[in-house]
């Protein structure tokens, strides 16, 4: 069953949107649970996004996409 | 709260037997200092003679067996011996464009130092450094031709010892003119804020080439700047070898015991010009004669006579030994070969 990769909701307080600044793996890559897979930025602060599960990742939002808290940016199957 | 003066600080240490001993030079220290002052002075006198070879009647700096610039330390010997009496080979010293007295007191290899001044391949750096860039890694001595440049590296050496948990203090010798360089301020603050085993010794010979201290520096006593860094500061007056030895001893011991940095200014005299060839027209008439009358070597000789019973005969013996060290070093330098010219391309990277 596919696990969604979403923008964490507990990293910043306001409802500001984030930008995906870097994907640190390619579309279709194998990832392990907890692996650092992307960097996002809210205002000037960088945050990390880690894989919620192990498996093959499909990226649905590219680098430079603007995303809201909780938005899905990929899934792992 | 004002930082402690060295006297107040040493009062609190009165219980410790060490402190009383540090206040007066021991007999051994007195003779050690006297010998090093003599070697230093004989060295400067000989180097001066050789430097002038080939530069008469026309003084062209490029000519002669010792070309380039030359900055002699006649009169400033007390600064070197008073401080280095408390230092070990593992302690780090950086010095200035006027380095010879400090190098000798620090234990730099005399033969190799003179060979370096002559530019011979047997010199400390194979001739690549010369008189203003004397490096002796065996005794952790380095000097530089850039005013104030030795401050940062000495602070870094002190940092290194503290980080490695190794013994050792670092001493930076600078002139009173260097105090007005930004490098001085930055290094003093860094040493203080990181509480490093670092001592800054200001050799105040009153002149920055032709500019008197009173014209260049906003305060007559640079030791007051220590307050800006929250550290002890002290000014030694009148080139007193014993007082330098006392005060430096306290500062160095404080640093060794984790007490952090100190700043010491020493009022000393430059008996020769800023550099060889300096006509010194800027010095007031009679100033040099007055200073020669207070030659610190004569003062030391008199003290050893009255305190330690040094006789004229013993003194002649000591002087002969010191003169021989210098003469041997000069002979070694003269006998040594120049490096091959192509060797200039080597040692850029190790």
């Amino acid at each position: 069953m596919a696990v969604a990769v979403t923008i964490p909701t507990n990293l910043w307080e306001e409802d500001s949107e984030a930008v995906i600044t870097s994907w640190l793996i390619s579309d279709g890559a194998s990832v392990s649970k907890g692996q650092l897979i992307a960097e996002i930025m809210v205002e000037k602060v960088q945050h990390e996004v880690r894989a919620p599960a192990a498996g093959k990742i499909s990226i649905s939002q590219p680098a430079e996409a603007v995303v809201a808290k909780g938005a899905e940016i990929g899934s792992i199957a | 709260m004002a930082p402690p003066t060295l006297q107040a600080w040493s009062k609190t240490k009165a219980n410790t037997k060490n402190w009383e001993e540090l206040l007066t030079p021991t007999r051994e220290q007195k003779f050690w200092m006297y010998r090093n002052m003599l070697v230093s002075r004989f060295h400067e006198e000989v180097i001066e003679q050789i430097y002038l070879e080939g530069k008469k009647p026309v003084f062209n700096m490029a000519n002669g067996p010792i070309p380039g610039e030359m900055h002699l330390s006649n009169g400033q010997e007390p600064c070197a011996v008073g401080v280095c009496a408390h230092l070990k080979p593992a302690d780090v010293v950086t010095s200035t464009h006027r380095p010879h007295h400090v190098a000798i007191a620090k234990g730099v290899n005399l033969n190799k130092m003179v060979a370096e001044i002559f530019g011979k391949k047997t010199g400390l750096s194979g001739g690549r450094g010369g008189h203003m860039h004397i490096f002796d890694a065996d005794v952790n001595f380095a000097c530089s031709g850039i005013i104030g440049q030795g401050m940062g590296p000495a602070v870094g050496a002190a940092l290194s010892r503290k980080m490695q948990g190794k013994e050792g203090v670092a001493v930076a010798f600078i002139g009173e003119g260097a105090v007005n360089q930004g490098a001085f301020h930055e290094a003093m603050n860094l040493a203080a804020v990181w509480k490093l085993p670092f001592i800054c010794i200001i050799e105040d010979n009153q002149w920055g080439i032709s500019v008197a201290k009173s014209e260049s520096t906003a305060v007559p006593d640079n030791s007051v700047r220590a307050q800006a860094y929250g550290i002890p500061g002290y000014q030694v007056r009148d080139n007193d070898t014993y007082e330098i030895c006392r005060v430096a001893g306290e500062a160095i011991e404080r640093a060794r015991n984790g007490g952090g940095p100190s700043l010491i200014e020493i009022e000393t005299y430059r008996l020769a010009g800023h550099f060889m060839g300096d006509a010194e027209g800027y010095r007031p008439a009679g100033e040099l004669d007055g200073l020669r009358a207070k030659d610190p070597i004569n003062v030391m000789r008199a003290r050893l006579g009255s305190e330690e019973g040094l006789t004229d005969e013993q003194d002649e013996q000591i002087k002969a030994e010191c003169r021989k060290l210098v003469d041997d070093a000069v002979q070694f330098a003269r006998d040594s070969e120049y490096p091959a010219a192509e060797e200039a391309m080597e040692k850029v990277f190790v």
Partner: protein
Amino acid sequence: MNEQVATVAANERRLTIARAMAEAIALEMRTDPSVFVMGEDIAKLGGVFGNTRGLLEEFGSERIRDTPISETAFMGAAVGAASDGMRPVVELMFVDFFGVCFDAIYNCAAKNAYFSGGNVKVPMVLMTSTGGGYSDAGQHSQCLYGTFAHLPGMKVVTPSNAYDAKGLMTTAIRDDNPVIYMFHKGLQGMGWLGTEPGATVHVPEEAYEIPFGKAAVVRKGTDVTIVGVGMGVHHSLKAADKQAAQGVSAEVIDLRTLVPLDRDTVFNSVAKTGRLIVVDEDYKSYGVTGEIIATIAERDVSVLKASPQRVAYPDIPIPFTRPMEQFALPNPDKILVAYENLKRARTWRWL
């Protein structure tokens, strides 16, 4: 021989240059207690450009030291510590700030080994940010590669991607000489000033070295050699892509290190293609572009089928306003224009 930039591996792990630098430093610090880091905002903040992220947490404040704003003091201190058995990695936040401490760098760090006949070593790494393009104006956007490469006694490295960044940092820390590690802000991976995605590439987890003095042929070709450094490499690759669509085959070389400089790889490529374009974001005159062209000209000018061209920053202070800054900066289209000029330039041969 010539190496390719690492491509996607089985267990892919991409890093930004910022992370790659921090990782290289951490790996060395784990095995060598003499390595430590000093600079402004490199401890708690992890570096304004992210290159010391995580180091304070792992190694503590004795070895990861925030300094006062005292470049002369801590550059000088790095020299003294390096001469006393430590291996400092010290940061000059912006290369543009070199003016306040250059004596300690070019006159002290770079020369002490020579002045002492090799008896005193200065094994320090000075890492510094370069480059603009995001309106940071004339005192925060310079590259100054030529300034540092020109003066003797210091090695100079300029990574264009994260794989090289980690390997070059490892080599730099292990080198017994002063190394100036010049990273480009626009390649760093810091979101707040935009980044070139091509710089974020797969980086192996283990420590590895990339030797100095070995340029990389990052794209093979036959019609023209395009030599780049730092961001210039990415401009060159994009230009090469566009040229391929027009049937032109460009060979792109990433110099990777300026001192020592791999003149052989450049010469061999130009001997093959006969045409040379050099791309550099540093000022044009008296710098990297002239040095590469002189390298070919003095060795054997007959290999050239056309006059070499250079795409570099003009000799002006960097302007603030966006239209002016973008006008001045090298970019892929300027490389294409240079190729047209190159074809049009009078050709000649030795008889």
